[in-house]
């Protein structure tokens, strides 16, 4: 299990949060963490405390809205939902991410003999 936290690439948590919320469902923090974990085959586990600054930033940028509601388990929790601006930001971030990882792969796949 790899913990992506404060040491991770900037923006990874934000991208994951936006992606998880992009279905339109409103979710609280723990649900988002669980969703990331499940969808990555439990490979990615967001550090719980680190999630909140990211949520806050997204909220302030107007990419998410937040609302206190009663959960299924009768608990009062803050539920987050993606905004249209958030959808657009996600699309942009995904394009950048893809380009970034492709470039990384290209570099990392160089064979040792090609470097001489």
């Amino acid at each position, binding site marked *: 299990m790899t913990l992506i*936290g404060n040491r991770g690439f900037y923006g990874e948590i934000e991208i994951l949060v936006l992606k998880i919320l992009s279905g339109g469902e409103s979710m*609280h923090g*723990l649900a988002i963490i*669980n969703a990331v974990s499940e969808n990555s085959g439990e490979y990615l586990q967001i550090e719980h405390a*680190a999630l909140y600054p990211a949520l806050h*930033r997204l909220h*302030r940028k107007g990419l998410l*809205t937040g609302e206190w509601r009663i959960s299924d*388990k009768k608990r009062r*929790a803050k539920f987050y939902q993606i905004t249209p601006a958030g959808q657009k930001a996600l699309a942009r971030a995904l394009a950048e991410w893809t380009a970034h990882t492709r470039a990384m792969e290209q570099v990392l796949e160089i064979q040792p003999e090609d470097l001489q």
Partner: protein
Amino acid sequence: MNAGEKWRMLFRREDTTGQLARNIDAEFDTHFDMLVEQLRDEGLSEEDARTRAEALIGNTELAARKCERTDRNWLLSERAGHVLGSIAADFRYALNIFRISPLFAIMASLCLAVGITFITVTWTVLDDTIIHPLPFEDADELVMVGTRDSRMGDGHWMSSSYPDFLDWEAGNHVFEHLAIFVWGAFTITDLDDPVRVASNEVSAAFTDVLAVTPVLGRSFTPDDYRPGAESVVLISHGIWQRAWGGDPDILGRRITLNGVNRYQVVGVMPPHFTFPDNRDLWIPFRPAEPGPRGLARHITFGRLRDGVSLDAARAEMHQIGIQVAAEHPEIEGRREVRVVRFGPFLTDPLRQPLLIIFIVACLVLLLACSNLANLMLSRATGRARELSLRAVLGAGRGRLIQQVMIESLVIALAGGVLGIVFGRLGLKLLLAHVPIELPGFMQFELNPGVLAALSGFVLLSAFIFGLAPALAVRRGALGSSLRSDTVRMSSGRKHVLIRSGLVVVQIFLVTIVLVVTGMVMKSYLAGHTARLGGENNRLLAQYVSLGSWAYPEQESSLAFFREAVEKLRNSPGAEDAWYTTSVLSDRADGSAGICSDETVRNSERPYLVCDFWTVSPGYFASTGVSLLAGRTFTELSEGERSNAIIVSEALARRLWADGEALGRSCYRSREPDPEHIVTVVGVIADEPFSSSEGAAGPRFYLPLVRDTSRGYGWLVVQSGGEPRDLAPVLRETIRDLDPHLALTAPRTVAELLRERNWRTVVFAWVLGVIGIFALLLTVVGIGGVVAYSVTNRRHEFGIRMALGATFGSITRSVMRRGAIMAGIGIATGLAVTLVAMRFLSGILENADPHDPVIYVLVIAFLITVTLLASWMPARRIARIDPVDVLREE
């Protein structure tokens, strides 16, 4: 987040962050509980679940701090955006005042505009002449070196002789380059319309000293100075345009100067380069031999070496001077070598007038500012209700101050822009009123430095004038204005006091401005109306320079002038015509030595040097010279010789102790030379003219005959009516005699006087305009304040009238205030002016700086203006019906 939440976040920051902290803590608590629950559901014990949850959650404090930081940044940017938005709104609102109260806005802007206009004009001129006189690289390193012969009096230019220059050049270690020039003039004769231009013969280092290069072609090279080298010439950009239409093929062309030499044009100098005054041609200075050391006709100028101070240069040149004097004891006089900075030297005669105008302009700016302050104050009081209402409705003080400040900024900007635009027009107008051709270096362009400083001033004034109403907002004076009228009255009274103080300052300033203006005007009028004979305003004069190349003999030039005078005298419309070497009777064209058998016995002063005129007989008949004894010159036939001379009373007394001159003989030379013996045929009064430059000195007149004939002079015609009508006749007559002469425009005597007194003329003109505006500003200021105070005391007057006060007593009471303000202002103004006059007396040629007439006039005038300005509102208030006022309660 909805709008309400946003609003609360913006204006209740502490609450927001506190609330935020609670929010985050709550979120973490929920998260923790849910996580524990989830772990328990996965089968962990309560204790294990908690431990595991704590590990998974990590550092919540750090996370909370990060959230806070995000919020803070967000808040800041939101606020900035909000403030910017409100500023934009205030600007729109402020622009509205031009619609809502146009009179106030226009008056306020115009007040500032008037002040800024004069500052723009005077500062630009000051900057171009006194502060940065010469437009050359490192112009403060340029100096003039010269000797001053103690016997010659204080001429303006310091001169040097060529042998001196050679010694200085060889001996000094302080100059990077040293150059010399000689004044000259040429007629460019191969043009359709020949022109006469001023020129300089310059030495090789000329362009090095000034660090200029031609825009076209090259400067002079050492080859140009070799004996027998081809004649070359550098021309000014101006003459290149005027005479050759800017022809690019001018380089290498040979032009004809003075009809004989063919000079090759090797370069065109940059635009506006007319060094040192209004020169159009420069040719190499190539004397065949050094010439006499005692003949100081040349000007030496140089550039100081880097790091050499003016004092160091003075010290070394002084030493060299002493050395040269010791080696050449035959040179008479104390010939001290002096070094002065060139730029300040050139503009020195303008320094004081310009400084005075600038100071007066500053006073007017202050006047304008105090008016503006007055207007702003009255508006602030008038708006107190509006602002109070807005404050009550929830507008914060900061917001109101911001709005008041922006309003002030809008007015200041309008005034500033108007002022600079008017200033540029004013500069054009000013230049159009300068009757002479200014040296090329005086361009009077509004420069960026001046513009930047003016903009700074406008912003500063916006701040200062916005301050008063803004402070009123701050002090909470607002609440009171919604309350009773009594409170308003007392605060109004305080305002009246401040505003009356401002008016006193205005009267103080305008007193100074008017006295100075009055003095200058009087000096100007005295110079301008200098009486040059009863007929002077019917004269038209044409300067003619024949040129030695076309008229090599004295006979030929004499013949030309005689014939011209004869023809002009008989031309239609002309009453009389004559020749003279100088049209103005208080300034001769030259001076010469004269002695008598009596003076030569005085070993100290064997001769005297005085002004003289060479004239044809008509001169005396029409110029109002009053003859004391003897006769004037008679008509002579061609070739006849004459040894007649007419002397002035003062000269007669100097030549003969008893002053009896008529019929006596003297010598028109510095020693009794029988060749130059002349007989006095007439004596004229010393001061037939009210001279604009002090009493007339000793002088003499010679008849126009072969011996005295010169190749130049003025042809003057007297018209029966308008002298200008004779211009075509004058020109045609001269053209008929010689079509190749270069003629300048003919002048009337008034024009000649204006040209000669141009400094005073322009000075008086500018000050006159400034004075009028200063007065206007003051009238507006006084009127405004009295009207305001009267309106404020409406209630009081109503009661007083109900109690039996009469129309007269009310009017008197109002006018008393005006009189008190005027009294204090005028008294302090006069006190300061009397001190300042010491500074002014040096430049006023004909005025006594303590002339009581001016002071009395200014005092009477100002008192009248003040009383009139307060009488009008007083009359208005005294007419009110007390019942109306009391009913208003």
